């Protein structure tokens, strides 16, 4: 009744081509942004912000990255964690070389290194497809993970073998390092995610996004439309890895505050992000957020939520249940709704549009 496009006429193509053509959607986005920028910092406690919101934002960005590759371009990758690692280690080296440059700039630049490595490992995608490509990305995963551990230059020859995050400030406020508060780290994450999501949305709605989807849906026809397959696939790898790289840098610098590749950037992480994309919805940016929210909150909810409800569950048992639930959910989603939570959201919106009438 309230969510309806009746009476909203578009008088030019620009209005019709907007990402959110409906006024109600635009209001909705504004409300969500207001909650994210004002509501959560005001109302959320440190635990919520540091252990729920920041992981959610980092995973969302990584999931958007993988969705560009897998959902939009149709190339399966099992190496997302490794590309995130490239971002994290590049950022660490950049902070060492350019201590004076703002850390946010460095985080954004470190994505470029990840993009370059992504292109390198994307090169075989011209000749191989499907499962074969999945194996090729496993090569990236294991090789890069090995490199992060075996090349001491990457972690500045630290005895711990891990990235040690230095303190960096923005306008005098510490945003990385031990003394940065969860709120400031949250704001930085949020800002980066909002801006990068906006870029991603623009790209997938434009010429490049259409080329990717064309390659995904029917590569032969795409080539006969004049789309160069190698270009389309490599740009997808580049943009995807860029997002993964930035997410990885954010993960270490703004969330973990340090860490080692073998603990963080493992094949398990690659899978987790792939599952976020599947459950959230292949080929949907908003789905990436849904998937990230769902899978990043699930372990926390089981670990802390069930005991709070009076169900006794140990940490290990919670982890096992998480695995089983995630596995089962993947199967359920593939059977019931291969387009994931994003499609459920759309169906909901469609229902709302005609409510209270059935159609």
């Amino acid at each position, binding site marked *: 009744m309230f969510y309806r496009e009746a009476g909203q006429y578009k008088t030019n193509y620009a209005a019709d081509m907007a990402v959110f053509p409906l006024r109600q959607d635009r209001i909705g986005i504004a409300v969500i942004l207001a909650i994210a920028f004002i509501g959560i910092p005001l109302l959320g406690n440190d635990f919520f912000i540091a252990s729920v919101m920041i992981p959610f934002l980092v995973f969302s960005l990584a999931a958007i990255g993988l969705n560009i590759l897998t959902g939009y371009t149709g190339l399966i990758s099992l190496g997302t964690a490794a590309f995130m690692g490239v971002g994290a280690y590049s950022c660490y080296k950049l902070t060492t070389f350019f201590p004076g440059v703002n850390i946010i700039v460095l985080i954004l630049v470190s994505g470029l290194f990840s993009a370059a490595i992504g292109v390198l490992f994307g090169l*075989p995608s011209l000749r191989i497809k499907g499962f074969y490509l999945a194996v090729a990305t496993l*090569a990236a995963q294991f090789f890069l993970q090995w490199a992060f551990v075996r090349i001491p230059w990457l972690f500045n020859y630290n005895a711990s073998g891990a990235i040690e995050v230095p303190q960096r400030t923005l306008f005098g406020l510490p945003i990385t390092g031990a003394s940065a508060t969860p709120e400031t780290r949250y704001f930085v994450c949020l800002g980066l995610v909002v801006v990068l999501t906006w870029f991603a949305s623009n790209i997938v709605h434009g010429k490049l996004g259409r080329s990717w989807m064309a390659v995904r849906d029917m590569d032969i026809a795409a080539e006969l439309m004049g789309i160069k397959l190698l270009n389309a696939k490599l740009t997808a790898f580049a943009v995807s890895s860029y997002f993964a790289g930035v997410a990885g840098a954010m993960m270490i610098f703004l969330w973990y505050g340090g860490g080692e590749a073998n603990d963080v950037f493992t094949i398990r992480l690659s899978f987790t992000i792939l599952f976020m994309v599947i459950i959230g919805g292949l080929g949907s940016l908003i789905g990436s957020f849904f998937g990230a929210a769902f899978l990043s909150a699930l372990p926390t909810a089981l670990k802390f939520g069930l005991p709070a409800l009076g169900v006794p569950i140990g940490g290990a048992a919670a982890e096992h249940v998480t695995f089983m639930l995630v*596995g089962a959910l*993947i199967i359920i989603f593939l059977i019931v709704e291969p387009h994931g939570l994003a499609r459920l959201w759309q169906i909901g919106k469609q229902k709302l549009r005609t409510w209270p009438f059935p159609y």
Partner: protein
Amino acid sequence: MSDVAAQPTPNLLANGWIKSGLIVLGLVAAAIVGARIDPTGTIHAIFVDPFNQMAQAPDLLAQTIWEGLVSGVLYALIALGFVLIFKASGVFNFAQGIMVVFAALTLVGLYEKGVPAFLAVVLTLGVMFALAVTIERVVLRPLVNQPDIILFMATFGITYFLIGFGEAIFGGNPKQMIAEQLYLPKGAIDLKILGGIVSLQKIDIAAAIIASLMIAVLALFFQYTRIGRALRAVADSHKAALSVGISLNQIWVIVWFTAGIVALITGIMWGARSDVSFALEIVALKALPVLILGGFTSIPGAIVGGLIIGIGEKLGEFYWGPLIGGGIESWLAYFIALGFLLFRPQGLFGDKIIERI
């Protein structure tokens, strides 16, 4: 021919074998020239020194190859499970590795509960059958005629479910395989050859023999039984098989159960060499490069691919690994497969795919 330069002998280079052969030849030639020019530097260390080492200590080389052969047999066994399922249902079963762990854990777990060893084997087979039926009912049946990639991702779901399920029941700690109770041989045979001692574990020899037997039985089964023929029909086309009255559900149960048996045998062999734990999950991923080498539908391919990967990565680790810090075993297999893919995308024994539009 005057315009050779304009058309660089396309027919010759179109052949993948000749092309890769020429590249290998070129590399060898470059290496020899490089080593001559620079007898102590990097090129020497990469292209000459390892071969010198091999020539000087042939017993070590034989030992390394044997080690590679043995891990290759195990890779091949896992890959065999993949191939069986892929051939018969077109599903790329990512969960095969975890099925190996799950089967082994069930066996050991049952034994620990006090079940006699051989009864435990029978019961484990029962569990694998139940698993096959469940997967068919819950996962495959609702997904008939979905794109392959959807089924592929569904097996990720199976993998994760089995990891959680296995850990919840049996715990995450590594366990000892009940090798002795199953009368598997122990100890080693030391061969005094090649001017040194090459030590062969009896369990490895047993693994190789059992693996060959199993492969022979499977090949016969596929080739000469009615079910085998039906399996091949289903692999070609779900719809067409249905239309000639083959029961997909029955076939799938059979095939997944067969893969479960293969998984159990692999699990016993593997468990007898190291211990039974979820660490195997990562090792099992190495079956994927094996499949790339061998092709997804070829049983001999899985064997040959397994051996190439096994031996290749052991040799690489032992002779070249130290040059760049060691531990290259974790990724070498993937790179061998990747390099191979660029020359022969359809695998060693796979058929060339002609795209029709």
